[in-house]
């Protein structure tokens, strides 16, 4: 990338240093641009599904793992945090707010199956709609409702629901979640993704008729053992910043995780271009 190292001359010390750091910054931003485009590409791939023929599970798993890797890296170096913070300023309308969450469903009922996945969702649904039915993620009707914000396609995309009622629920979620969509990009996405939300949501049909029986408690421990708590911290931080009084999912989150202290408020820069770009991504994921 550089033909040779830039020498620091004593007389031009200040300029040379800033050149170096500028080059470094350029490299870094080029890397994050590449990373961003890779993320976009991966999300589009996840969205596309074959209408008649089942999608290739191996390919889907590999792409989803790639998205997860990018997400994790972006979270660790703070760019994900910055991007999501952009939406949490008071001026944003609820429908455009964006939250990255990892929801831990420690349901106290014994028969409920815990769900663990990383979702990217539009917050802004009414409380009752955000609380997703367990059946949206599995086909077992008997499971109790867990408090999950469901828009993350990556998370719940493996299961293909077979209940028509479930599909209606999902569509309702989709409609309420996306608000007015005044952004042109969003409209384009609406037009582009002509498949019904249920199809996009069910990208990776697994065609299991019977849901696996909930495992014993030791299985629960295993499920929780590899929880990435950095996501959770992010979530509670963002939770604390919500100014709207009626925050259904976040109230639930708070009740689920009393151990986490309330986060500090972080100031949010106004990144309009990032906002549009992120809207674009979110539209892909949510599949409006």
């Amino acid at each position, binding site marked *: 990338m550089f033909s040779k190292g830039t020498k620091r001359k004593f007389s031009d010390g200040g300029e040379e240093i800033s050149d170096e750091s500028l080059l470094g910054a350029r490299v870094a931003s080029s890397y994050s641009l*590449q*990373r961003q485009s*890779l993320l976009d*590409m991966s999300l589009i*791939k996840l969205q596309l599904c074959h209408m*008649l*023929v*089942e999608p*290739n*599970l*191996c*390919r889907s*798993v*590999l792409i*989803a*793992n*790639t998205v997860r*890797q*990018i997400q994790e890296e972006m979270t660790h170096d703070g760019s994900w945090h910055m991007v999501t913070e952009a939406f949490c300023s008071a001026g944003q309308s609820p429908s455009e707010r964006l939250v990255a969450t990892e929801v831990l469903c420690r349901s106290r009922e014994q028969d409920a*199956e*815990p*769900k*663990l*996945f990383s979702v990217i969702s539009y917050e802004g649904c009414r409380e009752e709609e955000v609380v997703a039915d367990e059946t949206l*993620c*599995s086909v077992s009707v008997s499971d109790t409702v867990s408090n999950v914000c469901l828009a993350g396609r990556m*998370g*719940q995309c*493996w*299961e*293909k629901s*077979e209940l028509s009622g479930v599909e209606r629920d999902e569509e309702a979620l989709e409609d309420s979640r996306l608000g007015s969509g005044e952004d042109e990009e969003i409209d384009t996405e609406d037009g582009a993704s002509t498949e019904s939300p249920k199809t996009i949501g069910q990208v990776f*049909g*697994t*065609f*299991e*008729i019977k849901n*696996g029986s*909930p*495992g014993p408690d030791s*299985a629960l421990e295993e*499920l929780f053992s590899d929880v990435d708590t950095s996501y959770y911290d992010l979530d509670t931080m963002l939770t604390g910043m919500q100014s709207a009084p009626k925050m259904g999912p976040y109230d639930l989150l708070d009740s689920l995780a009393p151990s986490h202290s309330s986060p500090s408020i972080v100031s949010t820069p106004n990144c309009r271009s990032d906002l549009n770009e992120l809207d674009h991504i979110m539209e892909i994921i949510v599949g409006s």
Partner: protein
Amino acid sequence: NCAIMASLYLSGWVCVRLSPSASHTGCSASDIISTVEFNCSGELLATGDKGGRVVIFQREQESKNRLLSRGEYNVYSTFQSHEPEFDYLKSLEIEEKINKIRWLPQQNAAHFLLSANDKTIKLWKISERDKRAEGYNLKDEDGRLRDQFRITTLRVPVLMPMDLMVEASPRRIFANAHTYHINSISVNSDYETYLSADDLRINLWHLEITDRSFNIVDIKPANMEELTEVITAAECHPHQCNAFVYSSSKGTIRLCDMRAAALCDRHSKFFEEPEDPSSRSFFSEIISSISDVKFSHSGRYMMTRDYLSVKVWDLNMENRPVETYQVHEYLRSKLCSLYENDCIFDKFECCWNGSDSAIMTGSYNNFFRMFDRNTRRDITLEASRENSKPRAMLKPRKVCTGGKRKKDEISVDSLDFNKKILHTAWHPKENVIAVAATNNLYIFQDKIN
């Protein structure tokens, strides 16, 4: 001469069969060959295609009159193995594409093979009929019943020769055992059982029993959202009927012993090469995903194919392969484009030669590669109509990775990524290879023969 024999398959290959023989102006998608497999003697070669058809080629017998004809393969039998199905419950089509064909060892005059699409495995019997009975009492030659009062004497029907007819009939249908797509089938060395593997499960079947199968591996997580790894290939050990291996999308291989437990979720051996941290990228996992695993004929080694390389493992050493061969390392800098056009998900197969001294695998631009394990030499050949005139020897090809391109070299950017060789097979005893290039089947043999 040892030296000549050792380098034989690296220098002198000629095309003995190109099928279909006439070049088609348009290639129908259903003609794309999806699997190629020699039988245990090498006399028969089966191909399966995307349209659910199986075509079997038979080797010409050696004859004194036509010395040069030995080695030619001609069509022996063609039949429709699988039809497209529609799963009404899930509103999905089940493709008729044949994913794998495996031959059973021959035990009588008939030949048996297993063919599998995404969901169903079928056992086919291929038998010859070259005689027919004549001189029936109750019916005449046209098959019409004779008037009873005309029958005055009894005669014994006589077998008369007729034109050879090859019949394929389905003897068993093993269905409804796989929720996910079948990627592998493998006949056990006990010749009584076989395994079938899909993305998340492996089942063990008895060849005689179609309404039951044993699930021996299940990696489906209780919560599908946690799914991060799938099974990509599985194979039975060639001699130990209790052992089998399966590979994963994370580049690992597990060897399991069926004596240890009914459910082989816990492996006996776990093969994984530690990752080189300096070459880590977002594509590392994808290119480490193993697309094929094959035991050596000896049973001591196994070979795995990932996106850029072929690795030979000693079953006694789990922490790294004993040999690694780069198939097309020049693609490493193009991974992003290959991810974009989905080529990075192509599943290449690999195969051993009969003596386990050489391995072969396919690449892009209709190239395929052979590696000599003893001399460490390798060769790149191309399966194309222009280069496959009868008796014409294949010329080695070379990909130019940078700098000045020499004559006859092809640059990386000129490679045709639509022309991929995913399926190759090597005759179990001789230097005869079958290479499937989209809808064309090439059979090459070494020129000494």
